[in-house]
C-alpha cells in the first residue's frame, strides 16, 4: 500500500499501538513509560507534519483517501481522508499531545502512575485525531466515543477533590448527546436515496436536496444534541466547568484544546452540509445560543474566584464566538470558526498549562490566595500568563483576535438564505451583543491580571519565592507561545489552509 493511502491510518494507529506498548511497560520501570510515550507522540507529530507537507495544495479537496469495507451488510466502511478543514485540527491534536508528553516529564498529578496516565493520553489522542479524518459517519461516531473512556479515567483518577462527580458527569452528559447523534446518523442512512454512511455521498445528497425538510428538522435535532453538548453550547455547558476544574493539567489542555473542537467540527463537517435546509432553520437559534454563551461565559468569569474555573468558563464564551461564526452559514464565518478553534486550542491549552503550574508552585488556584505580585515573585511565569491572557481576550496582533472579529464581521452579513428569511436584524443585534461580550471578556481577563500579576506580593511568597518556569516547561510551552504570537500578524497560516475547502463545503448555501 502506498504512503498516500496508508498515511492517515499509520498516523492514527501509532498512538493506539503506543498506548498498548506503554501499558505493557513493567511496573518497576515506570519511568520508561514517559520516554516511550514521548517518542510515540514525537513520531505522531512528525507523521502529521509529513501529511501536512505532503498535502497537494494545488489540488485541494480530499486527499490521502483510503476506503475499505468494514461491516458490509450494515453499510459501514473504514473511510478516512483529510482536507483543509481537517488539517489544522488534526495537526494541532498531535502537537498538543506531544507537548503534553513533554510536560508529563515535569509533572503528573497525584497518584502519579505515569504508565497508566500516558497510556490513556495516547488512547485519547487516537480518538481525537480519528474524529477529524473519519469520512464514514459510523467511523466518526466510534472515534468520537473513543475519547470518553480515557478522559473519564483521567479526570476520575488524577483529578481534583471533586473528581469522581466531574468524571461521571462528563461521561454521561456526552454519552446522552452522542447516542442521539448516532440515531440521527442512522436516520440519514435510511433516508438517503442510496443507503450509505459515506460522508461525501451524503453531502452530495444534501446539496441536491434529497432529504425532505421535515426529516431534516428531526435529524438535525439529533445531531445538534450530540454536537452542542460536546462544544458545549449554552445551556448544555454545565459539565464543562466541573470537568475542566477537576481534570489534571494534561486532561484540561486536551479537553479544551481538542475535545471541544470535535463538536464544532461536527457542525461544519456533517450537520451543515448534509442537512442544509434544516441548518438554515436552526441557524438563528444557534446564533442566539452562541451569543448568550458569550455574554454568560464572560459574566460567569467575573464571578469566579478559582483561576482554573475562570479559564474553563472563558472557554464557554470563546466557543460561543466559534458557534456564532458557524451560525452565519457563510464561508467567512466558517473560516473564522476554524481559526477560532485553532486559536482557542493554542491559547486556552496554554492557559491550562499555566493554571497547572501555578497550582503546583503556589499550591492554590484561588485568585485571592495568590494575592497578586506574581510579576515580582515569579516574573517569567507572570509574563507568560500576562501574554496569553491578553491573547485570549482578543487583542489585535495576537492569535485570539481574528476568530472573534471575523465571526462578528460574518454575523453582520449572514448567508443570503438567512437574510431572505428575515433574520438580518436579529444577526445585526447579535453582533452588538457579541461586541459587548468582547468588552466583558477583556474586562474579566484584565481584572484577573490585576489581581494576580500586579501589586505587591503577599509576605509568604516574598519570603520563599516559588520556582520560576523550568526548562522542561519552556520546552512544552515554546511552540504554543510562538504560535500565539505568529497567528496574530499572519492569520493566513490557517485561513490559507482552510479557505478553499470551506468555500466548497459551503457551496450549498448562499448560491
Amino acid at each position, binding site marked *: 500500500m502506498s504512503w498516500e493511502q496508508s498515511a492517515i491510518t499509520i498516523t492514527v494507529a501509532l498512538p493506539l499501538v503506543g498506548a498498548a506498548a506503554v501499558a505493557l511497560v513493567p511496573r518497576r520501570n515506570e519511568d520508561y513509560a514517559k520516554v516511550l510515550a514521548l517518542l510515540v507522540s514525537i513520531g505522531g507529530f512528525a507523521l502529521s507534519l509529513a501529511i501536512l507537507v505532503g498535502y497537494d495544495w494545488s489540488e485541494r479537496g480530499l486527499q490521502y483517501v483510503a476506503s475499505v469495507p*468494514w*461491516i*458490509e*451488510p*450494515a453499510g459501514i466502511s473504514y473511510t478516512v481522508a483529510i482536507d483543509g478543514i481537517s488539517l489544522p485540527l488534526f495537526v494541532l491534536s498531535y502537537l498538543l499531545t506531544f507537548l503534553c508528553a513533554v510536560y508529563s516529564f515535569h509533572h503528573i498529578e497525584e497518584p502519579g502512575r505515569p504508565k497508566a496516565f500516558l497510556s490513556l493520553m495516547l488512547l485519547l489522542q487516537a480518538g481525537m485525531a480519528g474524529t477529524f479524518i473519519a469520512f464514514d459517519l*459510523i467511523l466518526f*461516531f*466510534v472515534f468520537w*466515543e*473513543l475519547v*470518553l*473512556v480515557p478522559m*473519564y*479515567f483521567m479526570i*476520575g*483518577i488524577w483529578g481534583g477533590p471533586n*473528581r*469522581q462527580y466531574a*468524571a*461521571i458527569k462528563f*461521561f*454521561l452528559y456526552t*454519552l*446522552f448527546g452522542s*447516542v*442521539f447523534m*448516532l*440515531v440521527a446518523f*442512522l*436516520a440519514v*442512512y*435510511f433516508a438517503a436515496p442510496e443507503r450509505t454512511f459515506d460522508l461525501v455521498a451524503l453531502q452530495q445528497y444534501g446539496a441536491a436536496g434529497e432529504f425532505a425538510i421535515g426529516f431534516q428538522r428531526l435529524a438535525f435535532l439529533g445531531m445538534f444534541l450530540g454536537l452542542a453538548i460536546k462544544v458545549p453550547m449554552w445551556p448544555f455547558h454545565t459539565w464543562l466547568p466541573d470537568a475542566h476544574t477537576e481534570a489534571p493539567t494534561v486532561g484540561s489542555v486536551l479537553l479544551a484544546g481538542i475535545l471541544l473542537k470535535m463538536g464544532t467540527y461536527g457542525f461544519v463537517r456533517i450537520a451543515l452540509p448534509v442537512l442544509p435546509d434544516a441548518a438554515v432553520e436552526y441557524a438563528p437559534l444557534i446564533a442566539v445560543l452562541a451569543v448568550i454563551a458569550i455574554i454568560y461565559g464572560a459574566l460567569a468569569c467575573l464571578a469566579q474566584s478559582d483561576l482554573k474555573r475562570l479559564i474553563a468558563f472563558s472557554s464557554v464564551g470563546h466557543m460561543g464566538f466559534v458557534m456564532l461564526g458557524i451560525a452565519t452559514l457563510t464561508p467567512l464565518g466558517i473560516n473564522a470558526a476554524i481559526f477560532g478553534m485553532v486559536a482557542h486550542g493554542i491559547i486556552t491549552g496554554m492557559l491550562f498549562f499555566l493554571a497547572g503550574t501555578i497550582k503546583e508552585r503556589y499550591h492554590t488556584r484561588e485568585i485571592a490566595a495568590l494575592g497578586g505580585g506574581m510579576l515580582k515573585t515569579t516574573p517569567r511565569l507572570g509574563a507568560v500568563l500576562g501574554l496569553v491572557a491578553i491573547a485570549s481576550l482578543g487583542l489585535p496582533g495576537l492569535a485570539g483576535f481574528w476568530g472573534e472579529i471575523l465571526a462578528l464581521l460574518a454575523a453582520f452579513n449572514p448567508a443570503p438564505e438567512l437574510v431572505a428569511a428575515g433574520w438580518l436584524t436579529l444577526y445585526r443585534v447579535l453582533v452588538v451583543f457579541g461586541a459587548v461580550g468582547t468588552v466583558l471578556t477583556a474586562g474579566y481577563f484584565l481584572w484577573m491580571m490585576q489581581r494576580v500579576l500586579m501589586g505587591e506580593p503577599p509576605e509568604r511568597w516574598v519570603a520563599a519565592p516559588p520556582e520560576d518556569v523550568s526548562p522542561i516547561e519552556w520546552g512544552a510551552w515554546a511552540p504554543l507561545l510562538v504560535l500565539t504570537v505568529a497567528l496574530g500578524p499572519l492569520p493566513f497560516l490557517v485561513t490559507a489552509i482552510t479557505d478553499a475547502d470551506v468555500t466548497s463545503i459551503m457551496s450549498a448555501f448562499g448560491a
Partner: protein
Amino acid sequence: MTDLASDPTTVDLFALAPELSVVVAALLILLVELALTGERKRYVNLIGLVGVVAALAFTVALWADIGDGARAAFGNAFVVDAYALLFKGLFLSVALFVLLLSYRYFSEFRTYQGEYYVLLLGSFVGMMLMVSARDLVMLFVALELVSIPGFVMAGLRKFDLRSNEGALKFFVMGVLSAAILLFGMSVVYGVTGTTDLAGIAVALETGERLPLLLAAVLFVIVGFGFKISAVPFHFWAPDTYQGSPVPVTAFLSVASKAAGFAGLLQVTFVAFAPLADVWAPVLGVLAILTMSLGNLLALQQTNVVRLLAYSSIAHAGYMLVPFGVATATDAALNSDAFRAVLIYLIAYAVMNSGAFAAVTAVTRSQPSRLVADYAGLGRRSPGLAAALSIFLLSLGGVPPLVGIWAKFFVFSVAVEAGTAFGLVLAAAVVLNTVVAMFYYLAVVRTMWMDEPTVEEPVAPGKALGFAVGGLAVLTVVLFLGIGVFTDVAGVSTLVASG
C-alpha cells in the same frame, strides 16, 4: 422446505450428532461418577468437556455439509440450517465456558458434582433442540428440557436459604408460564390444525382472526417472556441469580436466556409472522418496560450479582426492541430485525459471560459479592480489573468494544422502521443507555478510584484466568470483526422468510 422428507419417523443421525454427543457425555458422567470417590469426582468435568468439544466438531462438520441448504429429521420437526448451527455453536461455546467456570467451583463445593454436570449438559441439549425445532411440540419439549434442570441447579446450594427461595420462585414461575404456554399452543393447534411452524404461518395468513387465537398467540409469547425474564415475568431472576452458584447464574443469564430468545424468534418471526401487527406492539411496550425497570432497579443494587441480574433484565429489553418493530408485510425489515437480535445475543453472550467469570474470580476470595468488595481491585489485580472494566463498558455500549454493535443494530432497525413507535423505542434505548452507564461506571469507579479494603490480589486460577482473558480479548476483537456474524446472520434469515 418441500424437498425435505416429511415422514416423522425418519432419523438423520448426522443431523442429530451434536445433541447425541452431549447426551452420551451426560450419561457417561452419571456412570463414571459412581465409580469415582472423593476428590476424583471432579474429573467428570473433563468428560463433559470432551462431549462438548465433540459436539462443536460435529456442528462445524454440519456447517460444511449443509452449505446454503438444510438437513432435517423427524419430518420437518427438527431442522439443521445455518441459523440453528450458529446458535448451536454459540450454546456449545457457552457450555465450554460454563464448564471451565464450574471446574474449581464445584470441586471446592464438593457435593452433587455428577448430578450438576448431567443437569447442565441436559439443559444444553434442550437449547440445541430448541433452535432446530420447527414444530410447537418439539419447541415445548425443548423448552422444558432447558428449564427443568435449571430449577434443580438453582437450588444446589441447599444450605443457603436464599438459594432455596430463588429456586422455588424460579420453579413456580417456570411451571406457571409453561402451563400458559402449553394452553396457548393447544389453542393455536386447534385453530390452525397443525403444529408445524411454517404450516401455522400459512394457516394464519388466510384464516379469520378469532379473539381466542390472538389471546393464544399472546399466551405463547408469555411463556417465552418468562424464559427471557421480560417484565412483568422477571420477578424470579434477581433472587434466583443471587441464590444460585455463580456458574449457574452465568448459565441462566446467558445460555438459558439466549435459548428463550431463539424460541421466541422462531414462534414470532416464523409461525406468527402474519399476526405481527398484533404481537409487535405488545413486545415493543414490553421492551420499554423491561429495559427501564431493569435499569432503574439495577441502580439501587449493592450486590454485584443482583446488579448484573437487573442489568441482564435490561438487556432483554433492548433485545425485544427489534420484535417491537416487526411487521407482517415488510420482509426486508423483518430480516434486519431478526439479524439485530442475533447480533445482540452473540455480543451479549461474550460480554456477560465475561462479567460473570470475573465476578466468580473475585467471589473466590471475597464471597460476600458486594460492590464494595471491588474497591481498589485495579491496584490489587490490574489485569482482572481491566478485564471486568472492559466487560462492563461493553455492556454499557462504548466503542471500541463489541457491545456497541449490539446497540447499533437495535438502533438501526428501530430507525429503519420509520414509524413513530420505532423512534419512541430508539429514544427509550438512548435514555436507558445513559442510565445503565451510571451503574456500570459505579463499579468501574469502585475498582479504580477507591482505596482497597484488603491488599492481597485475587487469584482466579488457570481455567478461570484463561476464560476471563480470552473473553476480554474476544470483546475487543469482535468489535473489529463483527462483520463475520452479520454475514452469517444474513444467510440465516432464510428462517425469517419462511
